[in-house]
């Protein structure tokens, strides 16, 4: 949708949505939120941006192809699940440690994996559909 109003507003909203998404991800262990919800909001942010500014502009805001993110997200989740191996505990046993004064646990890392995977997968879908849609409206109108 090529409108000035949307284009301008979406710049703000994009940032806001991304911010909200990171928040929902990070505090999900204690308050409503979590990796999945966070990822959905982030996808919304990109969807909005793609809608207002076109797909190529939205793609520029992402360092790597979204589908690759799926692989990395799953890898993060897998690694977080495998940490317990070194402590001789069963798969996915939670391991908590402090890093620079921040308490981090494998479940939180796992949630980040969730975030990346869901984000990558859904974004890949949205981008894919936007790409095919780029041509269609002109033909259809």
């Amino acid at each position, binding site marked *: *949708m090529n409108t000035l109003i*949307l284009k301008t507003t979406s710049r703000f*909203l994009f940032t*806001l*949505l991304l911010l*909200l998404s990171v928040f*929902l991800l990070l505090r999900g262990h204690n*308050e*409503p*939120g979590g990796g999945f*919800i966070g990822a959905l*909001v982030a996808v*919304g942010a990109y*969807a*909005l941006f793609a*809608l207002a500014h076109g797909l190529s502009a939205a793609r520029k805001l992402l360092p790597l192809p979204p589908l690759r993110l799926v692989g990395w997200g799953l890898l993060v989740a897998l690694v977080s699940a495998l940490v317990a191996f070194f402590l001789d505990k069963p798969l996915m046993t939670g391991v908590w440690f402090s890093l620079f004064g921040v308490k981090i646990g494998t479940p939180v890392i796992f949630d980040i994996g969730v975030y990346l995977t869901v984000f990558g997968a859904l974004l890949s879908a949205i981008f894919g559909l936007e790409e095919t849609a780029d041509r269609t*409206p002109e033909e*259809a*109108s």
Partner: protein
Amino acid sequence: MSFLEGALLALTLTLPFALYRLVKGPTLPDRVVGLDLITSVAVAMAALYALVSGQTAFLDVAIALALFAFLATLGLARYIEYRGHKGD
């Protein structure tokens, strides 16, 4: 029933109006307006329920909804723009 619970009930009573528009149309944008109204009421309900339950966690629902729900309107608007208001 406390006042706030009554308010919650009152709030739900706005929904039939939205439903009417949603079903009645007559055009697709009209239905979207109905949905928009439902979203607004939902935000209000989330906020109100944060009062009723005494749990501020429900405010997060309101926040997420406030920032996200209009995306649906945008998506539908794009459809309407190119494909007409009759739905197909």
